[in-house]
């Protein structure tokens, strides 16, 4: 076979493979969106075309479930976790790299150890502790365990390596104190890293299921993943309604993903390079 023919087959294979994988990746999401506009009967018949039941399914959710409350709770949890985590972890990652180059390796071991602790190990004592503090069902109890994560600290530490130290020296000579160097020089320069961290944290917090399920017992404080999980509890599942709830709980993370996609890739690249 000639070289050119070989190459052509290679290219054809590559496009076919990538298209097939892309289709398989999108199909379940497309199917979910279509199902949210259909009745259970039609979904079970295997329909792949959008139907007309969207509003009925929505009404069913609004009347039968605390969906607005769950959306609001999920949003409050995810937004406050993200804000707190970004500030606390980037302060630490920056402090690590700028001031403590000597202790770096020792701290790295501590962080890696913390990263190895499964949530299953800390869950029960955390539950007992928050119960004692009277914080069951409280937003604070939902967010506190996930605002200081070794992974984010490492991400910020790695990215800080690409932050030019000359800027810090120059700012010091200009009389800026250390904390304003961080807020006025570091944060604006490291936008891609913050975007990556924000995407990861927001999605993680929005999608978190196990811990909210343990710490939240009343319907008022229920989050979206909890609501979705509860929809199959009955004897007969209304698939259209279930898929609409799935769709609604997916929209916010998809929006965050599309808004920050580009900087997300940049941020990860910066971190991986260091």
């Amino acid at each position, binding site marked *: 076979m000639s070289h050119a023919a070989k190459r052509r087959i290679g290219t054809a294979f590559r496009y076919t493979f990538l298209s097939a994988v892309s289709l398989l*990746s999108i199909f379940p999401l497309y199917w979910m969106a279509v199902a949210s506009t259909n009745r259970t009967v039609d979904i079970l018949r295997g329909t792949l075309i959008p139907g007309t039941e969207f509003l009925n399914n929505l009404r069913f959710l609004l009347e039968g479930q605390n969906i607005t409350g769950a959306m609001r709770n999920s949003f409050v949890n995810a937004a406050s976790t993200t804000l707190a985590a970004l500030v606390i972890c980037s302060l630490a990652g920056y402090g690590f790299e700028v001031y403590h180059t000597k202790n770096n390796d020792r701290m790295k071991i501590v962080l890696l150890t913390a990263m190895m602790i499964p949530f299953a190990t800390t869950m029960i004592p955390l539950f007992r502790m928050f119960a004692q503090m009277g914080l069951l069902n409280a937003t604070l109890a939902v967010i506190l365990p996930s605002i200081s994560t070794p992974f984010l600290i490492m991400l910020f530490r790695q990215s800080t390596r690409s932050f030019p130290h000359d800027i810090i020296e120059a700012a010091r000579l200009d009389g800026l104190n250390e904390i304003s160097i961080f807020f006025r020089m570091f944060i604006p320069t490291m936008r891609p890293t913050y975007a990556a961290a924000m995407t990861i944290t927001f999605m993680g917090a929005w999608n978190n299921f196990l811990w909210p399920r343990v710490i939240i017992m009343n319907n008022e404080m229920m989050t979206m993943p909890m609501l979705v999980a509860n929809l199959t509890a009955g004897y007969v599942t209304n698939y259209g309604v279930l898929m609409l709830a799935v769709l609604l709980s997916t929209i916010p993370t998809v929006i965050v993903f599309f808004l920050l996609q580009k900087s997300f890739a940049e941020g990860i690249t910066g971190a991986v390079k260091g």
Partner: protein
Amino acid sequence: MNLYKRRNLTGWAFLLPAALMICWMSFWPMAQSFMLSFQTGTGARMRYAEPLNLNYGRIFNDRVFIQALQNNFYYLLIQVPIMLILALILATMLNNKNLKFRGLFRTAIFLPCATSLVSYSMIFRTLFAFNGFINTALVRVGILDAPYNFLTNAPSARIVIIIALIWRWTGYNMVFYLAGLQNIDGNVYEAAKIDGAGPVRLFTRITVPLLRPIILLTVIMSTNGTLQLFDESFNLTSGGPANGTITMSHYLYNVSFVHSANFGYASAISFVIMSMVAVLALIQMKVGDKR
């Protein structure tokens, strides 16, 4: 106070909030969990067990736990290699600058990561239900004569979980590889091509060795994640049929919050999970660091 000392103190101030939070939310609970793992009783009434290792002794005679352990390792050994190799191949293909629709492919493959674990579990549960889309389609095309109950047969239910996991996480790992590939100098590939290396050779001799640190990172992350699986077992199969797909974390949840509040036994289980995570990570770091 001299300048050096002041800088040093400032540095600690930067670290303080994060360090306090990690101690309060990770290390302290871990220590408590360790103490709890030697105690028996339910809920708030706990006392030290006689003998002290009562809970640990019970674990390895516990059929459900052994089943859960096997399930976790089954997922780990089958799903993680398939997913990571697929992610590497996809990343290599997408790293080609002349490829058309690159952004489109990348977005499509990464999109599953935007769905929550509960959501995608529900999607796959519905797709693979007895009267679900997959069965309808397979019967219509003629591959199956009658619908097959994927989720009530343990072997097929485990495979559904594996398919779901691959669907959800391949794109995520691909992004890490893509990031790593962008840092590899293109000239290395050009030089190898001039020397007559084909695509397979380029992949095994250049891509894989140069991406080694990132591959190691993804292996550790995936192992860690797989040993802690919960949402899929809980929502996709409810651990069934007859604990055939249950994971260790799911069993731990049942022990502490569903059957009875047996926090001592649950803590012992959690320490078994943790030692496995730690041992596997250490082995992987040792193997992966060789150059």
